């Protein structure tokens, strides 16, 4: 019997008992729909997390260097920052390590009050070098970024984030206005473009920047940095550059083995890989659950097929009497199981993708579909049909036609 005729005949047989066929499919539909939906929602969430990190970090082609051995956890405070990263470390890295495009200097202040007339706010206050905006890819919606001249002259100027503009100025034009940062007057020079939400959905706009020289000498009297942001020529050289930077800093800081580094080189890329690994662990669990659901669907197919085989003994006998071999009968039942399961899988994928779309829209995320998972789901449903159809098909093939035909 040709393959097309086997499939055609199996199809007719399924079409003749629609309710049973549907019931057989149900488990696979549910399992595959869950698999597709959960995977796609997970993918949409993962993509959103990536976007949040990207917004926070500006770019991924950077290394960040922080003081300390990196073992401190939780929110840093002034007291927890080691004074190990010096201003000169920045230019030294830019000059001494190949593959480094530029190095931005950052000195973060903690718990600084910012006021404008009666309005007060406690934003993140960063002293930054003039190249910071370029490294981060920040742009201004009004005014200008900090300049080299601002840096050299220790100018008391600031560029504020969208939240600060809103909280202090309530719609008033901030440009040229004087605000007080830790009671020192600064003139607003620019307003940064909104960056939206970062990881966890918190705003990335509640911040302002001032020249790092001003911060160090006029505001806080500190000669050390909280972060060096190293921008790479080529992000794929990240590991090599990190090694070179480390070697250079150890030399500059006169660290001799076995003494530990007094700084930590971090890579957003590595962090992100970590995050997507966590994501994939979760999605493995979710996938496992949905696969089990699909297997239960397979078991349902098997039990209903077995009932079908005993109900269709006479049909099997007739087919055998008119010339069907055991193999023909086996193929027929196996193909029926595979058709049922694959059809269930296809319907499940449609429902799952639909569910994922709704789910993503409810979370206000652009929907994402995990195509590999969808392909895998279809393959899984076919495999389920084969595995769970095999035993009933074997049973059917071994029905004794004489027995089955006795009237």
């Amino acid at each position: 019997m040709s393959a097309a005729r086997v499939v055609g005949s199996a199809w007719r047989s399924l079409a003749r008992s629609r309710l049973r066929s549907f019931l057989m499919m149900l488990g696979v539909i549910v399992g595959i729909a869950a698999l597709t939906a959960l995977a796609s929602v997970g993918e949409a969430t993962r993509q959103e997390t990536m976007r949040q990190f990207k917004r926070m970090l500006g770019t991924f082609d950077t290394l960040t260097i922080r003081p300390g051995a990196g073992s401190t956890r939780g929110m840093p405070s002034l007291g927890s920052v080691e004074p190990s990263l010096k201003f000169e470390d920045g230019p030294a890295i830019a000059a001494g390590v190949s593959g480094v495009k530029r190095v931005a200097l950052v000195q973060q202040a903690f718990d600084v009050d910012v006021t404008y007339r009666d309005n007060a706010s406690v934003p993140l206050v960063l002293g930054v070098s003039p190249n910071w905006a370029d490294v981060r890819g920040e742009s201004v919606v009004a005014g200008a970024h900090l300049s080299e001249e601002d840096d050299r002259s220790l100018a008391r100027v600031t560029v504020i984030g969208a939240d600060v503009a809103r909280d202090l100025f309530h719609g008033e034009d901030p440009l040229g206005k004087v605000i007080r940062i830790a009671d020192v007057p600064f003139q607003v020079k620019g307003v940064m473009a909104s960056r939206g939400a970062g990881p966890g959905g918190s705003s990335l706009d509640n911040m302002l920047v001032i020249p790092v020289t001003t911060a160090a000498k006029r505001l806080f009297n500190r000669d050390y940095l909280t972060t060096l942001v190293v921008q790479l020529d080529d992000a794929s050289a990240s590991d090599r550059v990190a090694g070179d930077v480390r070697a250079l800093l150890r030399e500059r800081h006169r660290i001799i083995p076995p003494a530990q580094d007094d700084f930590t080189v971090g890579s957003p890329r590595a962090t992100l890989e970590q995050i997507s690994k966590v994501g994939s662990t979760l999605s493995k669990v979710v996938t496992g659950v949905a696969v089990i659901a699909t297997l239960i669907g397979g078991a349902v197919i098997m039990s209903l097929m077995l009932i079908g085989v005993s109900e269709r003994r006479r049909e099997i006998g007739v087919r055998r009497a008119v010339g069907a071999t055991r193999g023909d009968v086996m193929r027929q039942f196996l193909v029926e199981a595979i058709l049922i399961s694959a059809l269930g899988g296809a319907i499940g994928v449609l429902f799952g993708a639909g569910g994922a779309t709704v789910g993503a829209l409810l979370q206000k995320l652009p929907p994402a579909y995990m195509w590999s998972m969808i392909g895998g789901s279809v393959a899984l449903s076919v495999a389920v049909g084969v595995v769970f159809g095999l035993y009933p098909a074997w049973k059917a093939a071994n029905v004794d036609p004489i027995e089955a035909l006795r009237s």
Partner: protein
Amino acid sequence: MIEASHLSRTYRRGDGTPVTALQDISFTIGAGEFVVIRGASGSGKSSLLNILGCLDTPTSGQYRLAGEDVSALADDARSHMRSKRIGFVFQGFNLLPRATALENVELPALYADASPDRARARQLLERVGLGARAGHFATELSGGEQQRVAIARALMNEPALLLADEPTGNLDSAAGESVMQLLTSLHEGGRTIVLVTHDEHVASFADREIVIRDGGVASDTVRQRGRPA
């Protein structure tokens, strides 16, 4: 056509005790004969027909069909024999209930290495007088009609041998008569027919009668058709 020599068939009951259904049966049936097999219930008629139809194999003895020794054929080879050479007609019709009359008639073609031939199936339905019922499901047909569809099905692959086990057993006399008339006309068309029956009148359509008693051949009589021996 059929050469049976010293056929025996012993079944095993569930508890392992042997039941001898057929013992040392020998006869030959020539091409074109219309033979009726008679005997009391339990005498072994169906057991014999199953062997003749290649559904079963004898425990001992030899069975040759169209010159080929089929007594020791493997399962698949016997399927092919049934497909090519044998048409079955059963007491209980055994049509596929969820298939139409036409689909039922076509069924044997599915397992022959032939291309599906809907036109031929239609023709056969016309032949048994059911051209107008082609699209009806088996369950929508009367017993007599179902049996005629079953005969059309048995003819689908043009088998040389038709085997019928009590084909009129479930029919009233009028329907039974039309089925017998149909079989007679097939016989006249050259088909070899072996028919199992209890019914004296049905037996009268055949031109030879083999009586089975306790699994053995009790008598084998050639007679003038239409006149009981």
